[in-house]
């Protein structure tokens, strides 16, 4: 352990000097080499998405070397016996080639697909973390919006991607996409004719989806992800409440060397997971599905998981269709295709601004909330998760029906009710749980925690001694910050404040009061631990210390 560097080695110093003389990189590094990154397990969720994206770029590039995005007909004469002599599109034939004739091709295909699933899953849980901890608050609203755009684009990227192999399963997804697009009022038929180059399925859609999938959307994703990272870097990451952590500082490990190494390792772990899945968990075995024909479908066709909520919405919708003046409004397609997505994405995008409006809180926030400490936000989030979850679950109602032997139509009818009742119920339950947890925190702070030490009192009574919580835990709990409330109370002459006179203002004041009122304040007992069980007598408590 005696070998240490006395100065920067020439191998590093030389190029560094070269770059500094040309780019002035030194001042950037001076500021950023020891940039502090706070630590919490939940901060790793977004990294899963980031690293999955890198793996998607790598594996995707590999796939493009062999994939032919054409819909021209060819007769298969490759090594997969079961499909020899079958007429199929070039896209499907080249996907078979990648799977069976390119060494590592199947691995890359499966890794690409798994990475795509992990990409969207990573983004989703990362988004939930940011939402539930209020990490989207000022100054991070713009980065939140970028995140919502990224999630939307990722869904589109997934849709264009899994349509490319042109197998029977992907064709079913494409057909549904067409059925949805054509249902749009006014522009629907034109949109589909422009997208498909004429009538469905045409011979253009695969090559068009291909250029969207490998060029346009990934290009935008890359730009937005870079912006997302830069903003995170400039604004510094939020931190969980804890000892010495305030809104004016950031506590953690330096970028160089610790965070850099950890991030590298985490990239490799993500890569490991995706490689492992690509090796051991078969995904999208397109050779079993056969080439696409609009005349056939296999039962139990399911989209990738991130499309499940749209699929479920389509399944739950009653058969509503309006005909008027010779025009048709297919509500049974329009509503499920647009409304859930609209509610979720618009709701996500607007939430930071609505919350700011309701609370009147224009301050910067860098310490994350614990979800329990903003119970209405947490309940709204959980209600949305439930709404999404029920739609998602019912997207597989045929599987549920056959697996659990429940009547298929009953699952649909259950879903139609549950999609409304579920979120309401979950809202109430979540709110109660948050309140309970807040109460628990208050108890820990004011009464301490059970020490495991049983003491026998002079009168023969046994009590368990309570002690103050560990300092780091106590500091974590003390991170609870009151939510500001916009006052709507009339003054002494009965005149409400300026902002609360209109109907909107009154609504805002009412909501603000509901949203921000502190019901369970975090009282501290100034550290005097005491025995709680059965000892109501203050004198007894004193004796313990």
């Amino acid at each position, binding site marked *: 352990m005696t070998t240490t560097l006395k100065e920067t080695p020439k191998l590093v110093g030389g190029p560094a000097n070269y770059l500094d003389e040309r780019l002035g990189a030194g001042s950037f590094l001076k500021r950023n080499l020891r940039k502090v990154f706070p630590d919490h397990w939940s901060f790793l969720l977004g990294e899963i998405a980031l690293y999955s994206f890198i793996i998607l770029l790598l594996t995707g590039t590999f796939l493009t070397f062999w994939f032919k995005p054409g819909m021209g007909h060819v007769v298969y004469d490759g090594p997969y016996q079961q499909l020899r002599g079958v007429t199929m599109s070039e896209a499907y034939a080249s996907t078979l080639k990648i799977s069976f004739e390119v060494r590592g091709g199947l691995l890359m295909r499966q890794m690409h697909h798994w990475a795509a699933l992990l990409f969207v899953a990573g983004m989703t849980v990362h988004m939930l973390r940011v939402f539930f901890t209020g990490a989207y608050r000022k100054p991070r609203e713009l980065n939140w919006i970028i995140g919502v755009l990224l999630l939307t684009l990722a869904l589109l990227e997934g849709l264009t991607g899994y349509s490319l192999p042109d197998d029977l399963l992907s064709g079913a997804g494409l057909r549904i996409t067409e059925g949805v697009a054509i249902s749009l009022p006014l522009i629907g038929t034109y949109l589909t004719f422009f997208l498909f180059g004429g009538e469905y399925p045409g011979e253009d859609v695969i090559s068009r989806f291909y250029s969207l999938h490998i060029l346009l959307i990934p290009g935008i994703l890359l730009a937005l992800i870079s912006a997302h990272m830069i903003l995170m870097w400039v604004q510094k990451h939020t931190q969980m409440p804890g000892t010495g952590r305030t809104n004016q500082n950031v506590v953690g490990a330096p970028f160089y060397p610790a965070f850099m190494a950890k991030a590298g390792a985490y990239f490799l772990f993500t890569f*490991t997971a995706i490689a492992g899945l690509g090796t051991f968990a078969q995904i999208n075995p397109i050779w079993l599905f056969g080439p696409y024909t609009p005349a056939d479908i296999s039962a139990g066709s399911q989209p990738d998981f991130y499309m499940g909520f749209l699929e479920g919405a389509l399944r739950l919708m009653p058969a509503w269709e309006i005909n008027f003046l010779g025009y048709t409004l297919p509500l049974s397609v329009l509503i499920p295709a647009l409304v859930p997505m609209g509610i979720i994405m618009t709701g996500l995008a607007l939430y930071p601004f609505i919350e700011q409006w309701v609370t009147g809180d224009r301050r910067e926030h860098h310490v994350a909330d614990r979800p329990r400490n903003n119970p209405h936000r947490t309940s709204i989030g959980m209600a949305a998760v439930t709404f999404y979850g029920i739609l998602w679950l019912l997207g597989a109602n045929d599987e549920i029906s056959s697996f659990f032997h429940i009547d298929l139509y009953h699952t649909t009818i259950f879903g139609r009710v549950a999609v409304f009742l579920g979120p309401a119920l979950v809202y109430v339950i979540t709110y109660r749980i948050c309140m309970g947890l807040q109460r628990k925190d208050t108890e820990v702070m004011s009464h301490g925690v059970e020490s495991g030490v049983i003491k026998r009192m002079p009168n023969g009574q046994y009590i368990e001694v309570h002690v103050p919580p560990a300092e780091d835990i106590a500091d974590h709990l003390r991170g609870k910050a009151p939510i500001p409330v916009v006052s709507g109370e009339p003054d002494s002459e009965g005149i409400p404040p300026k902002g609360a006179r209109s109907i909107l203002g009154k609504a805002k004041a009412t909501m603000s009061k509901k949203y921000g009122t502190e019901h369970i304040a975090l009282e501290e007992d100034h550290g005097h631990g005491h025995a709680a069980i059965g000892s109501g007598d203050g004198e007894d408590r004193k004796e313990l210390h």
Partner: protein
Amino acid sequence: MTSNEQSSHEEDARVPRRVIGTPAAGTAVLGDSPPPAPAEDPAVVLPDPAAAKRAERLVALLFLVTFLSGIAFIASYVIFQVGTVDSTAASNLALGGSLTLALFSLASGIVLWVRRIMPKYNLVQERHLMVSDTDTREYVDKTFVAGANESGFVKHKLLRRTLLLAAAPLGLAPLVLLKDLGPLPGTSLRHTVWKKGLRLTVEGTGAPIRAADFNSPGGILSVVPEGYAHDLNALAKATLILIKFRPEQFKAGTIKNWTHDGIVAYSKICTHVGCPAALYEQTTHHILCPCHQSTFDATDGARVIFGPAARPLPQLPIGVDSEGYLIAQADFDVPVGPSFWERGDAEAEAREAREKAS
């Protein structure tokens, strides 16, 4: 908490501060190794050198595993050929297994390195409000106004307006360019390739269907127009589901003139979003679309009895030719497949037209 309060706890030392589930300090669980030597910077705590040395050996072992797995990956590429399902599976396992192991041990090695050899950090950096200071803002504000005036953009109205005017058609140009992405729909969605005399053939084999041979009630066939078996655009609208009933089983919804000897033909393309409604339940005569479970009653004009589809599957008028093969009598009289804006209530119009004709 203030330091005063802190000191008042010192007498409580026999009852340590802690939280449920964490063992008290000094208990056997924590072991009796000495605490790490105090570092110069309290925010950077270096690990015990002996422990770091032990960790180094473990990290080196993991890196060695990565080295060997990397070699195994390259060897697998050379050794395992692909072609058949089995050989591809073996190649996939060898390549993927060695890659996974290589990545996993590399990642684990680095994590051990960070956790056991690098110091524990508790660095603090200050944050500053994102907003720039007042002087900067004022300077930028003034510079902007001055620059705008210098440019003459404000003063010269004509320049400003013609610039906007100039931009408008250029902005539209890319949209105009997209027009040739596809033809306009016209009336193409209202027609299929079915016409009087076109034979029905079995999907897959392409064989025409003799009405007399398709004679067991409850039988079902997926049918495509003769000569269009590989025309996907035609199939996307013209595919049929052909079902044999006893003639008395038909209810009012089915147009009996359009059936032949209990054989009825419906469009297979679901009226919801266009999936092939491919499932048929013989006992209930229900046609079920596997995508979103729209259910149609095949004896009653494919009326919707459950699910999101809003319209019945259109019925195709069929008959037989001189050789007894099933043929179409005409095209569908309503557009098949999913609803679209210009469709209108085609069923009502078709009904009126039929009544007028009869």
